[in-house]
């Protein structure tokens, strides 16, 4: 019972969505629309559960005598800011404290972390772009052409590079992307089919 019923639920809900996509059967399509709305709602509950889970971990840390003081400080920060954001946001999505926390903590940190990708791009390029083998040389060659083609100053003096870069992006790159997508699509369909036919139960 504890596995059969969940598997049946997965199979039924999966087939409803698929049939609604391929056939114009009004009641099934209505059911599929309902189901997707339900999905959004259940996923929202999952976030609440996960957030509760995070809080439990940090509360656990605070009450653990042997935990380092430093980790406790961080747990206090997590719990405090979570409560401040959650409470003010639930009162009103336009609450000034909620907006302030968003503008002054979440937004700047988000942009800062995204921007750190530039540093990582530099170190990754330093390691990966080495002419060790034919394959690595192809990686390197294509990378250098596109880098030069995109650098504004190079483009102003040697417009040829920009054209070469556009060509690499448009022809070989496009071919590889398509090939990757076609292969991956077939794998994804198989993986999905295994779930909605009840063959794959690893998620239970």
């Amino acid at each position, binding site marked *: 019972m504890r596995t059969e019923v969940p598997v049946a639920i997965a199979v039924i809900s999966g087939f409803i969505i698929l049939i609604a996509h391929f056939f114009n059967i009004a009641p099934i399509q209505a059911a599929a629309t309902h189901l997707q709305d339900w999905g959004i709602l259940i996923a929202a509950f999952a976030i609440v559960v996960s957030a509760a889970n995070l809080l439990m971990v940090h509360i656990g840390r605070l009450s653990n005598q042997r935990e380092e003081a430093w980790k406790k400080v961080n747990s206090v920060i997590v719990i405090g800011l979570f409560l401040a954001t959650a409470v003010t946001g639930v009162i009103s999505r336009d609450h000034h404290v909620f907006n302030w926390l968003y503008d002054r903590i979440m937004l700047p940190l988000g*942009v800062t972390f995204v921007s750190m990708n530039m*540093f990582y791009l*530099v170190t990754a390029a*330093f390691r990966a772009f080495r002419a060790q083998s034919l394959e690595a040389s192809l990686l390197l060659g294509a990378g250098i052409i596109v880098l030069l083609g995109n*650098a*504004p100053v190079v483009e*102003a003096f040697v*417009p040829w590079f920009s054209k070469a870069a556009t060509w690499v992006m448009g022809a070989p790159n496009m071919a590889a992307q398509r090939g990757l997508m076609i292969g991956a699509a077939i794998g994804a369909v198989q993986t999905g089919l295994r779930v909605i036919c009840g063959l794959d139960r690893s998620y239970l």
Partner: protein
Amino acid sequence: MGAAPNDNTGKKGISRQFMYLLTVLAILLPLVFPVGMPVSVTPWVEKGYQHVEKLNPGDKVLISFDYSASGAADIHPAAEAIFKHLMDKDVKVITVAFVAEGNRFPGMLMSAWEEQGKVYGEDFIHLGFLSGHETGLAALFADIPGAAPVDSRGNPVTSYPIMDGVKTVADCKMFIGLSGGNPGPQQYVRQLEPYQGVEIFTACTAAIAPTVEPYLASGQIVGLVGGLKGAAEYETVMGYAGKASANMDAQSFAHLLVIGFIVAGNIIHFTSKKNEGN
């Protein structure tokens, strides 16, 4: 893929931290001391500029701000340049956002222009955020005051003079889509199909710019500003050097630096290999 296991960068020649420092300097120095390197203008930026230039004072333009904070670095400079062009030409601007985070950006532009004497509700208006991505787009184009009954300041949109005679998107001369992904050029073209006569001009991130190519070729989109570089080009055609142009110097140096590191990496790799051989 069975690539060779890591040689950790720190161990060979150049330390990570040193590379990070050089990266900061390569970007920061040109920002503090701009060099003003030449920027070549691509035809699609030039064409977009020409189409804006052809607008008459009093014409109305609809702009959607469909990018979030992470896309802003790439697109907002273009938004600033195009907005300035429209203001200089006394064109009336109606703005909207189909991405929740995009909602903040029109206000930032407008408050700067209000200080310079432009009037909210007469020269521009922001309708706020509309959900549903493409469905939101379709709804707004069909009935602007219906889909957005109140503006971002909470007043009925019909109470503002700028909205006189604006019923559908067909009452605007041009639609400018500033996109960080979804909705993007594809969605704009698809939803504006029924409203012939409204020109589509778009600015998007460098990453999705290549996907706009087919629409430009077919004439469905009249101009494209791609990423920060596109913004610098737009500033160049307008004849002023704004933020984007200064950023171009930094971007050039950063590109050259990355190439420099790749070359250095190869030299270190092959010399150390030689030494091992000896």
